[in-house]
């Protein structure tokens, strides 16, 4: 069960059961829909951005434990960040969950990702990478084209 505990860490389960920012955002000016056709996960991401700073973020939708927790923790992580800080965060998260199992993520990277580092166990479950990254792909799509739909396919 050691691998499973890496995947379903208490923090992740907590966010699955009580997702944070699980609502529309009043005055949102950026929005995108994410859909993983393989498993049917769907989420809509709402962002309120002022002067290149993410003032508020929220999401709605349905998904598995990993995708729900990822969206929940992502919205917490990006609040207060500038839009310029998002891409490095996306890259850091994406490379952490897709890294080869035999390569441990460096301390610096885990520190950079903060709480998001709990998702490092996902790399042992390649079939679940798309669950963890759906919210992040949706975020990138929202920033690039505030009203486009996004798919991980």
């Amino acid at each position, binding site marked *: 069960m050691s691998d499973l505990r890496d995947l*379903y860490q208490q923090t992740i*389960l907590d966010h699955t*059961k009580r997702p944070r920012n699980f609502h529309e955002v009043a005055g949102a000016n950026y929005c995108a829909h994410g859909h993983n056709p393989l*498993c*049917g996960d769907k989420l809509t991401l709402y962002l309120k951005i002022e002067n290149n700073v993410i003032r508020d973020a929220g999401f709605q939708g*349905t*998904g*598995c*434990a990993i995708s729900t927790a990822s969206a929940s923790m992502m919205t917490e992580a990006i609040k207060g960040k500038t839009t310029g800080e998002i891409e490095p965060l996306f890259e850091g998260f994406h490379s952490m969950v897709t890294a080869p199992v035999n390569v441990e993520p460096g301390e610096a990277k885990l520190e950079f990702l903060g709480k998001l580092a709990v998702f490092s166990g996902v790399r042992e*479950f390649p079939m679940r990478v798309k669950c963890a990254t759906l919210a992040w792909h949706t975020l990138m799509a929202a920033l690039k084209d505030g009203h486009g739909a996004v798919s991980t396919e």
Partner: protein
Amino acid sequence: MNRPVIENSASAAAAPRRSPPSANSVFDMSLLRRDFPILQTQVRGKPLVYLDNAATSQKPNAVIAAITRYYSHQNANIHRGVYKLSAEATTAYENAREKIARFIDAPAAEEIVFVRGCTEGINLVAHSWGLGNLRAGDEILLSGMEHHSNIVPWQLAAERTGAKIIPVPFKQNGELDMGRLAELLSSRTRIVAITHISNALGTINPIQQITAMAHEHGALVLVDAAQSVPHMAISAKRIGCDFMAFSGHKMFGPTGIGAVWARKSLWDAMPPYQSGGDMIRTVTFEKSTWNQVPHKFEAGTPDICGAIALGAAVDYLTAVGMENIESAEQDLLAYAQQKLLSIDGLSIVGTAAQKAAVVSFTMKGIHPHDIGTIVDEEGVAIRTGHHCCQPVMDFYGIPATARASLAFYNTREDIDRLAAALEKVKEVFA
């Protein structure tokens, strides 16, 4: 949310279609596990429990040996060479066709066309028969529980011909709404394309009755038999349908081979689906003429080895006996449903009275993908997702289900291992 919930285990035992076999015969069936090398292997350090037979089945030694034998001793191209090896390969390939015809009780072996699988079989019919016969205003009736492979080929044919797709709804328990079918059938109906057994719900559709109803309106019937041919005795003659397609890999044969059956009169009237070598009689740069059925529909070098190995799978199934397989699986189904329903928060999706050994289920508050990942850790392989049946998921208002689909080589111990793994799922999410 429309979730069917079985209230108690008495109705859950879903009335076996025939009385379950004696304890002895169940024991005998489980001995057949020894014929399947993969069932002796371990996954994640635990003996494999394989419960994804509706996706693909495992292969007995007889099939694996047929593949080795073919490439070691028989390999040559067929229908071409004058030399002995080619003649022997041709005979083995054509013998396989005859075995398959007998297995589904088809009127003639020449009516069996080898394809890559059920999907290609349906594409062949939708393309060749469909484009040649469908006209604007014609109607294609599909059941609401079809696999995408029996929806999308018809949509493409409809787009090109102006024909219309009419879905026939099913009821909350997963049974086809026969009353609505009767209302939807009309002189506009040209074909009813329907699955014999739903891969997502396990429902066994009354295809003999459906065929009779369709024929009264002059419509043809295509039966997607991918889930039925491996699990019950099938008679194309008795069903009376016009087309039947199925896959080799779901019936303990190799991937990449399958068959479609149709009456010779239909085959003769249909234009080729693909063209090239072996399907022609004469070729000039002005015009070509077609070989006879079935060769007209088998352009190029086919999967000769696959067909021969599928013949070996048919021999194996025949020796075991389809009636034995069916009753053993019904016994396992009753046990599985009872066992799974004893798990708090678990609901079975698809509770038709006539049901094959497919158990789709959901667990309260837990996404099927999380279920699949956690039971895999226990060495239990089940399918999670929409099972290529998105309209079925939409009907129940759920994104996905977890699905255990059984074969005769599964045992009550396999079901117990699944149930124990599902308890682990609950622990993780407790």
